[in-house]
């Protein structure tokens, strides 16, 4: 009981302090940086199967550039509500590994593999936190939820053996909108009265259940991904600027 009372006092103090602080401030920020995929999505396994199909979870996602636009309204000194729009395009990494798996699975002289990229557009909203530490410096954090509109790469494989082109098969691009989470922390340095620089690190997560069409697959051999239900997660590290309203 005593612990609950202490907790209530602390919470009320924070709330009232926050309430007395700079209400009604807001910012709009633009960030750019690098997105680092994690988990199976970022793996690039060498898959050889001569006697059937293999639906391997490795996603071959490479690190990507990411751009984002966000903004928040702080109804207290520390807590605000805001939204984020971000876009990233992840090229395929280790395409030689992917291509080599097809070559060995079909035991052919030559395979030519071409792949486009994963694309992710995120629309998220949630809570923003701002904790001033010393003059001009503050620590920021956010916890967001929303949707991601993601697409898988189109992968084209041309098979050639004994001087004969045995045709091309394709893993078609697939698009899916899914629930997404994003959260992280950063530091903010106030350069001018209305401008600040942000350095952020954020974790992102979504798990679209892609259904993927494959064309011209006639014989059971090699990697065949007709469903991809792996987490698309990773870390975004970004640097940006923010224009702030109502700062003192």
């Amino acid at each position, binding site marked *: 009981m005593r612990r609950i009372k202490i907790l209530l006092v602390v919470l009320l103090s924070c709330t009232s302090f926050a309430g007395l602080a700079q209400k009604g401030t807001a910012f*709009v920020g*633009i*960030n*750019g*940086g*690098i997105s680092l995929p994690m988990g199976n999505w970022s793996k690039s396994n060498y898959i050889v199967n*001569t*006697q*059937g199909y293999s639906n391997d979870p490795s996603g071959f996602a490479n690190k*990507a*550039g*990411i*751009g*984002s*636009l966000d903004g928040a309204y702080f109804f207290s000194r520390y807590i605000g509500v805001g939204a984020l*729009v971000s*876009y*990233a*395009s992840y*090229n*395929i*990494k280790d*395409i*030689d590994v992917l*291509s*080599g798996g*097809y*070559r060995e699975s*079909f*035991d*052919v*002289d*030559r*395979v*030519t*593999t*071409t*792949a*486009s*990229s994963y694309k992710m557009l995120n629309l998220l909203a949630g809570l923003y936190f701002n904790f001033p530490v010393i003059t001009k410096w503050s620590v920021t954090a956010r916890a967001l939820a929303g949707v991601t509109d993601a697409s898988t790469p189109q992968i084209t494989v041309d*098979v050639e*053996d*004994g*001087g*004969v082109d*045995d*045709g091309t*098969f394709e893993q078609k691009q697939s698009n899916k909108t899914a629930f997404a989470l994003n959260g992280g922390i950063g530091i903010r340095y106030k350069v001018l009265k209305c401008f600040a620089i942000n350095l952020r690190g954020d974790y992102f997560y979504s798990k679209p259940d892609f259904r993927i069409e494959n064309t*011209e*697959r*006639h*014989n*059971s*051999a090699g990697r065949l991904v007709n469903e991809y239900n792996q987490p698309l997660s990773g870390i975004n590290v970004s640097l*940006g600027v923010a*224009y702030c309203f109502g700062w003192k």
Partner: protein
Amino acid sequence: MKIYISFARKVLSGFVATVILFTGGCNKKESTVTPAPPSNEFLTTVELSLHNTADPTDTLLAIWRQLDPTGSAPPDTSKAILNLKANSTYSAQVIILDETQSPAAVVSDEIKVRENYHLLFFQPTPISASNLIISNTSTDIPASDGTVTSATGPYLNLTVSRTDLDANSPPLQIGLTDDFVTGAASNGWLRVVLRHQPNVKNGTYDPGSTDFDVNYKVNIN
């Protein structure tokens, strides 16, 4: 109001510029060409092992051999002969070896592992045009791929049918095990071709390329 619109435009322009700056440069197609590593395996020897289903003592082994991997020397066909009994059925097995290795590597085991895109064809000749059957279950080789039909005969009275199936869906024939059915006494040739049909195997001869193409003398007595 104009100030806000102008500001919003600047923010959006900045976002688009940031997206292009950070993602545009990386948004390209990846492409690669993967060649095969230098091969250390050759198809030097093709054996036909036959067992008369009605007579256990009637077994045959016909051997076509080409030990020169470059193919410049002529093949050894001294044992590429099948002496079959008339009106009999033989169960046959195709054994493919690489005799440049010691001990010889059994390549047909490898072909079995890669059965989903390999297919064997068996063409007895002389054959009449009406008996040359081209379908996705026939072992015959189309006239456009070298089979010469004869209008007058005499014909080789041999029919070959495959007895094994691969793991494709639906399954397709392979030809590593077969039935040889003889008719009346006759003489001729049996052409055996292994087709490598990566992702294009459909039961017919034309897709893909040829791994070997060999001939056996056939006597039916």
